[in-house]
């Protein structure tokens, strides 16, 4: 078992390193003039701009910059933001932003699982009847229509009907409702869809027929046997989704002006804030690798059929 974990950890580390270096090099391809905010570019002449770039060490050779960045990281200094929040330590940035996004993410995931599984069971219960059709339409809309569109309409219309505040206010809990619901929509659809599909697949397995023959009514069989089998494939992704909450949703955080990490990565890239991009990409890579690994452990723990020593 531990040999498996060690091998798995090494491979994950390799992945993270490759991702880190790949993004680092890609960032170096961006034009130098991109480091300056467009509207203020005329005010500083060429020479002053060069001074600025040299101060930030952006004119050194990429490998030198990589070495310096990694060196700092090992001393626990994540460096400072370049252009998005000049000179603000990235650590404080993350400390401020992650809790906000995590709070929303966690709440929406909870709602997602509870309502998603509820909807999934409801649709299986009333298979091919009205309830099932309604659920399918909901899943259809949430997964097919681009998220920006229905989120925009929700913000414009629903906030008016229920006169909820348009944007998020830290001190007014009523303003938290709408963003959380928007955020949870896609996970509700995800869990409902897959639970229904797995339940339907498991339903015509032999052990279900045998359980019925034993004298258990269909409802009991669904509850005791089929549900656990159907839930296992869903559990694999829960650790990953849990950790990746930090990524936040760019669309929702922009529409509701939530100061989370949703748009942070994109803004950082567009204003070429190399330090900030590096730290975020590294964080995402590590978290997703751990998420996947935890997912495998969790399944091995829950599903007796899978033994870890069998390797991937």
């Amino acid at each position, binding site marked *: 078992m531990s040999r498996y974990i060690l091998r798995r950890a090494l491979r994950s580390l390799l992945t993270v390193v490759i991702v880190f270096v790949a993004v680092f090099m890609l960032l170096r391809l961006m034009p130098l003039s991109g480091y300056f905010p467009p509207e203020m570019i005329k005010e*500083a002449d060429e020479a002053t701009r060069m001074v600025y770039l040299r101060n930030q060490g952006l004119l050194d050779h990429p490998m030198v910059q990589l070495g310096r960045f990694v060196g700092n990281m090992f001393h626990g200094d994540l460096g400072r933001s370049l252009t998005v929040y000049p000179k603000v330590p990235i650590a404080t940035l993350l400390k401020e932003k992650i809790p906000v996004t995590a709070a929303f993410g966690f709440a929406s995931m909870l709602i997602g699982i509870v309502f998603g599984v509820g909807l999934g069971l409801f649709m299986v219960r009333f298979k091919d009847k009205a309830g099932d059709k309604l659920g399918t339409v909901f899943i259809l809309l949430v997964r097919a229509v681009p998220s920006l569109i229905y989120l925009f309409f929700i913000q414009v219309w629903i906030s008016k009907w229920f006169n909820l505040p*348009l944007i998020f206010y830290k001190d007014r809990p009523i303003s938290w409702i709408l963003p959380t619901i928007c955020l949870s929509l896609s996970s509700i659809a995800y869990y409902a869809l897959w639970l229904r599909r797995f339940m339907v697949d498991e339903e015509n397995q032999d052990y279900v027929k045998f359980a019925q023959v034993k004298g258990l009514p269909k409802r009991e069989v669904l509850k005791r046997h089929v549900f656990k089998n159907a839930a296992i494939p869903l559990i694999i992704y829960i650790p990953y989704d849990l950790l990746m909450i930090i990524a936040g949703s760019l669309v929702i955080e922009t529409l509701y002006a939530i100061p989370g990490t949703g748009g942070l990565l994109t803004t950082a890239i567009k204003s070429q804030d190399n330090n900030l991009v590096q730290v975020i990409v590294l964080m995402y890579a590590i978290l997703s690798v751990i998420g996947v690994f935890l997912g495998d452990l969790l399944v091995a723990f829950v599903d007796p059929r899978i033994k870890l020593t069998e390797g991937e």
Partner: protein
Amino acid sequence: MKMKRMLALLLAAAMIFSLAACTSSGTQDQGASAADAQDVLEGKTYVDTYKTYFSSSYASFNYFSTAYATVREIVSNCIDGLVEPDIYGVYVPSLAESWETNDDETVWTFHIRQGLKWVDHTGAETEYDLTAQDFVDGIRYIADPQNDAYSMRVVRNLISGLYDYYWDLDDIDCGDKTDMTREEAAARFDEMVGVKALDDYTVQYTLDSSAPYFLSLIESSMLLLPIEYDYAVEMGDDFGIDNEHMLYCGAYYISQFERDKAITLTANPHYWDKDHVNLATVEYQMISDDTTSVEMFKRGETDYTTVAAEEYLSMQGTEWGDKLIPTDHSFSTNYLWLDFDGENPEFNAFVNNENFRLALMYAMNREAIGALREPVDPSRILRNTINAEGAIFDSNGKDYTDYSPLKEIKEMDYTNPDLAKEYMEKAIAELCDADGNIIGCEPTTVDYLPVCSFAVDGKLPVTICYVGTDDEDEIVMAQLLKAMIEEALGTENVDFHIEAFSGWTYGTVADPLNYDIYFDSLSTNYADPSGILTRLTTDGAENVGCYDVPEYDALIEEALAADTFEDRLQKFAEAEAYLAGKGFVIPFISSLRGYYMSYCVPHTSPLTLYGNDKYKGCQVMTEPITFEEFQALDAQYDIERAEALKAK
């Protein structure tokens, strides 16, 4: 929200003008008399907090190195300069009780108000006193290249010795200068740079050239503000990253700061002029989209909102109809820059011909372009002069733009397609042979990479490559320009081709001359035409088009050498008329934006024409001000302002 450059600029501009509501000196018709002004304000109840918003996330509070306009406005309420304008725009004492200058206005001495202390983010007085040394240290801070002081050009060329000191340090940093260590070079600051603290409470600036406009420079440029040097050195890189790493000496201090979300300014209890401060707190909320700001205004979640042109139309007749107030005029002017020395042989031939440039000027239907931003009354935002009107006044109150020959250009109505056609025919006659190929111009491929590359055949129609950003409003305007010019001059003569280049930066388009025409703006940011005009000389920093105008240069020399301010303005007016009249640069509209609604009483806070607006003195009512109330107060204000200007 489409994260566009133009939208960010728009909201940034809106930020600046959100205070304009309280200060605007609209040039509307006089209408109601002073008496009405009094009864307008009868029965108004006031509130002591003001809620407004900002859009793009701002950077840091380090006012020396910050590059973002949004932050400047917040900082200018927290850090006072030596002088500030009163509600009529007349410079009144601020941190400096009094000041005097020598006769050629190259040496300025300011007497600092005594007993003031720096305040921290909780509003408590710190042990640091505000002394003259703080102003000297301000220059010391920006003089060190390591501190990345931004847009240094004007101040660096003005204060004596600063230019050499700055580049010495930089040469040492990049290893070009090795004859002394950095510490030695830094130590030479006091004897090299023209700023001295004569005693604890008097600071004297010596300038390289005469600067009658020095006070307006203090107001607009952030680089002449004081700094508590020991505190800044102690903070190091953390100076200004948030409200706790800063000291305040202005009307407000930043009491609550939530990055990307909310900022609250609270009145500074130890402020020397605190009884003129009516607002206890100013609350900023971040919002993502301009449509939401109107919605939030209607729901009372903000006390101010800009209103885009079309929105204005749709709100007519609703309960908000009478609350819409036209924004004051802006000092930033939009120009078309022409490339006199580009790769495109066809355009080069024509652009150096005055007739063609006049044809271009007359082909532009400026009303239509204006209507894009101001559908109700487009003429309000049109402008034919390079410097803005209502910005620069001579000693007896005459507006610089009223000096002839500039006055004629200002009032000229250029929308005249047939005249444009005539000039075009003349230009073609001079430049092309009988069957339409341009003399001395062979077919080649024009390489404007990374923007674009295209082939030209050396024959009519002339290929014009307009390069703009990928911002939606600018694309819309470019397409409008194309339609007008081709309609007026005829598609057989002109082929107007638009290139929306998303990677548009000064470095990729303007500097390397990768364009035939591009659209940009410059603003008059202090009370002297030289601010812009000196940069437009043949070898001026802004002469991106590389035109060659010896006559213009001569006029500028004469203006600079003029002994009185009036003939200085006269010479500048002639130079500007020459440049604009002959179409070396084609100004056409101001960057003004639509309308706004506000709960502020107009003209109650300082009239900051160039710099950033202040909340000091601003009064906020419990319900929004209506347009008639605004007009009544505005008329009254104009009368008072004229008297104040005369009395100065």
